[in-house]
């Protein structure tokens, strides 16, 4: 063993090379090709020409749909972090205090939507939100709230909240799962010491457990940001950006440009910007989390 075993080059290489090789092979190479295509007017096949920074210029200065889709993604991120996460955390905390049997049953039930394919989730909510036949409006009409029985997914006022709701709902099971796994790593004696000191449950969680779980929480936030950026199927299968572009999200826009509109070069420029923005968000989040830790 060398002087400091945590510096063992051989061990580090063995640990790191396989994973990095896979990442390089399957992600970095296509990213590089993506960058290459982003400087062309390729349609995805056939001939194409180099157009320099034209695609980027258009996106940043002449593409309101891009900015709208970015704005919607940010709204989704905010909703995920400040609505979905707190509820999921509280539920996970409650679950962690229940008996093992009850906790296991409830945890399995809460996770059910997460194992269903996104096609089911999308079709389900389109069905529920159907203005004429959907359950939601039927319930609202039954209690006399006809006035707000609207066409949730096609009305410009409610389409975006409805889509965001569907995404939050679907990710809920995962969030509870993550938080629960995190809570399980909290050492019992840490909790007990705080309780013995006479702290209420609320104080135990806020003063002791949450700070302890900070690395887990920041991981969850980063995952929230990235998966919000990558949200595609649920939106595509429900509104596909409609009405107009009100519910357009970045990944859907990217897909439509690259594969539906045949603007492959432009779509790749969007991808590159997507990567840049995502990395930017991630760095910001990590910096904020690190600062709060102090």
């Amino acid at each position, binding site marked *: 063993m060398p002087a400091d075993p945590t*510096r063992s080059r051989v061990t580090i290489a063995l640990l*790191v090379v396989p994973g990095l090789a896979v*990442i390089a092979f399957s992600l970095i190479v*296509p990213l590089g090709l993506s960058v290459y295509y982003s400087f062309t007017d390729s349609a995805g096949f056939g001939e194409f020409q180099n157009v320099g920074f034209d695609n980027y210029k258009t996106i940043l200065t002449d593409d309101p749909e891009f900015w709208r889709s970015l704005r919607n993604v940010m709204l989704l991120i905010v909703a995920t972090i400040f609505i979905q996460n707190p509820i999921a955390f509280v539920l996970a905390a409650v679950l962690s205090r229940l008996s093992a049997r009850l906790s296991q049953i409830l945890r399995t039930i809460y996770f059910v939507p997460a194992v269903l394919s996104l096609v089911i989730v999308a079709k389900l909510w389109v069905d529920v939100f159907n203005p004429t036949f959907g359950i939601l409006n039927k319930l609202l009409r039954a209690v006399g709230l006809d006035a707000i029985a609207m066409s949730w997914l096609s009305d410009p006022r409610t389409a975006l909240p409805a889509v965001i709701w569907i995404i939050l709902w679907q990710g809920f099971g995962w969030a509870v799962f993550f938080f629960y796994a995190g809570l399980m790593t909290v050492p019992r004696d840490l909790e007990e010491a705080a309780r013995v000191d006479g702290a209420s449950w609320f104080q135990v969680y806020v003063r002791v457990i949450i700070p302890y779980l900070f690395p*887990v929480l920041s991981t969850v936030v980063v995952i929230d940001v990235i998966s919000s950026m990558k949200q595609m199927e649920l939106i595509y299968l429900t509104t596909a950006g409609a009405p107009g572009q009100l519910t357009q999200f970045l990944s859907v826009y990217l897909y439509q440009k690259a594969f539906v509109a045949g603007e492959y070069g432009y779509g790749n420029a969007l991808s590159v910007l997507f990567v840049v923005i995502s990395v930017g968000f991630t760095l910001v989040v990590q910096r904020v989390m690190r600062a709060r830790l102090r």
Partner: protein
Amino acid sequence: MTPRARRHVASRRVGMAALHVVLVFFALSQLFPLLWVLLYSLQKSGDLFGDALLSLPHDPQWANYTRAFTEGGMVSYGLNSLIIVTISTALSTVFSFCMGYAVARMTWRLKRLAFAAITLGMVVPIHATLLPNFLWYNLFGLIDTRIGLIIPYVAFTLSFNTLIYIGHFQNLPNALEEAALLDGASWPRILWSVVAPLARPATVTVAVMTSLTNWNEFIMANTYLASDELRTLPFSIIRFQGLYSSDYATQFACMLIVAVPALALYLFFSKHIMAGATAGAVKE
């Protein structure tokens, strides 16, 4: 009991009752889609998307399920899914465990670069990689092979998983590892006997995330596979997709069948979350 204590007890009881109501409410809302899919899968296709509101169809089409099995290629697709998902989950878990540990615990100069690569790997959108990877994998003859699907399945889950491990390792006290190192244990032994058991909640999280993500994955499978012999379970529904009229009910039956092993997998792994709970305690 003093009136004050009585009030305290009463308010606790109300609180507990309210809590149980909330839990049950959430449970119902999470079970609702399962019920919805089940009821719809028993309808006749033409009756869907209309007024069929969560009511038991008077003529449940159990034939939809038999058809899903016989014509949906469940057995062959299921086997492929099993092979591909198991191998990609195993590889992704192992690789991310190793990388996560190296980044969190080891000291090396290129750590920042590696972490940057991992972060980059996390944000690449799948659709942007489809055409380039098709051309690139084609050079190695990986198109229309199982391994050609396993590699991207590992790649796209590696970064998230590594992040989870890093977050977990950062909270783990070094004491046990340092003790083992002092005792002269080799790295493989340390990782396998000391670190891995401590990392069980993270491993469970990673395994569940990876396997479920890849179990339902369709876009990459659609792009990189061509032969019917290699197709995975998400393809089982396309046999029932027609040009104008689709057999939606049987598609739903397929999706429900596909969801069952996923739920079983979750059950299997989630039992192991409890095991890590006591492992955090180290007697100083």
